[in-house]
């Protein structure tokens, strides 16, 4: 009798580690499919829509690319709404910035477990390595992921399995523990060597983490958003826009999102139906969205700031078009704000 191959679902981020984890298990005859979660903060995807210079060299979605290299199916799951709770109230707290890595891992494994059960798969694999990340991949936190997600010993980490107690797939002989690995720590050398052995030459090497929440500047802007609104909350548009332009908050009630180059201007253009906006007309200049509420005085200040980033910054007067979210527009004429009046603390 030929045993039907066991089936594993792999958390695929698009980086090298998950790619290797899949390869290792695939080599042992296990059927693998990938799952990739879209939180809204992912570095993957959409960013290529923003910057003009990136358009010349189209940015691929690394998770899709990895799946194609591995010859596996990839299921991309939208978890934007549910993920908010992870970002707002992480049980295990944040990392260096607003990254709730441990809670995030638990949440993703839990979602993968639901998928695994719904699709008749046997276990989950991840590219985690003991000691690789300061918080979410420590020897003492790896078991927390298993416990809190409810996955227990159906979670296999092929790259460091030999440093951990045998899991169900190993004990049942679905995979051979001897052919798994014992990587640990922050060094990338063993991964790079293994990649070479598999003939993998091209792969993404994300620097900090897989999402914008590990970025200090991004986190500061998100924190500002929460402070301004008096509550931890965000919509998809908010977190997308935090990735684009200069964010300037001259008053508690509103901030400006000012494009820095044409690509960002085009991107922000697509949001004019949702936000009031300012665009210089007498001089070439940026497009700015207004997030919040402005009175006349606020609007004038906003216009003066935007004018300051236009080519008319030294002109006595700059003309701008103010358009509200409904599309009604009018013209404003202002004196560009002199540099010394642009306060440092406004810049987010």
């Amino acid at each position: 009798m030929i045993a039907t191959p066991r089936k594993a679902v792999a958390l695929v981020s698009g980086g090298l580690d998950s790619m290797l984890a899949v390869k290792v298990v695939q080599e042992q005859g296990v059927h693998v499919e990938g799952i990739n979660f879209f939180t809204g903060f992912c570095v993957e995807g959409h960013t290529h829509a923003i910057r003009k210079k990136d358009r010349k060299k189209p940015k691929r979605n690394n998770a899709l690319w990895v799946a194609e290299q591995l010859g596996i199916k990839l299921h991309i799951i939208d978890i934007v709404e549910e993920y908010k709770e992870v970002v707002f109230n992480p049980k295990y707290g944040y990392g260096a910035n607003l990254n709730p890595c441990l809670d995030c891992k638990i949440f993703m494994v839990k979602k993968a477990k639901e998928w695994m059960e719904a699709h008749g798969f046997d276990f989950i694999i991840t590219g985690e390595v003991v000691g690789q990340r300061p918080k979410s991949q420590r020897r003492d936190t790896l078991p927390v992921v298993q416990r809190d997600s409810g996955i227990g010993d159906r979670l296999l980490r092929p790259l460091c399995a030999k440093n951990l107690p045998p899991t169900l797939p190993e004990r049942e002989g679905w995979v051979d523990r001897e052919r798994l690995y014992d990587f640990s720590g922050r060094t990338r050398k063993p991964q790079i060597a293994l990649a070479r052995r598999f003939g993998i030459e091209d792969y993404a090497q994300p620097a900090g983490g897989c999402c914008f929440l590990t970025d200090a500047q991004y986190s500061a802007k998100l924190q500002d958003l929460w402070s301004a609104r008096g509550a931890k909350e965000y919509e998809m548009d908010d977190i997308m826009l935090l990735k684009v332009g200069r964010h300037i908050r001259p008053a508690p009630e509103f901030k400006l999102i000012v494009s820095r180059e044409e690509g960002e201007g085009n991107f922000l253009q697509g949001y004019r139906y949702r936000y009031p906006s300012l665009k210089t007309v007498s001089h070439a200049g940026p497009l700015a969205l207004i997030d919040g509420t402005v009175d006349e005085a606020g609007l004038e200040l906003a216009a003066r700031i935007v004018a300051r980033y236009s080519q008319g910054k030294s002109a006595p007067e700059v003309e701008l078009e103010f358009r509200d979210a409904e599309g009604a527009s009018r013209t404003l004429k202002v004196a560009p704000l002199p540099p010394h009046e642009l306060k440092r603390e406004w810049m987010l």
Partner: protein
Amino acid sequence: MTREVLDCRRLLCPMPVIRVQDRVAGLQPGDELEVVCTDPGVLQDIPAWCRINGHRVTEMREARGEYILRLRVGEAE
């Protein structure tokens, strides 16, 4: 055989891919889906997704800042 249209305008990648994936799950082999998008990233991402999952992109065109892709659903395994 059905032919459907999916509006993914103003969605940023990977949302259009997710919408396509979810819609295709309810279609039959041979069915056609036309996807209308505004994020140019779909020109890479949707074909990649189709290659992985055994579907075919039969047409890609750009018109007035919109990207229109036509897919034919492949055989399920």
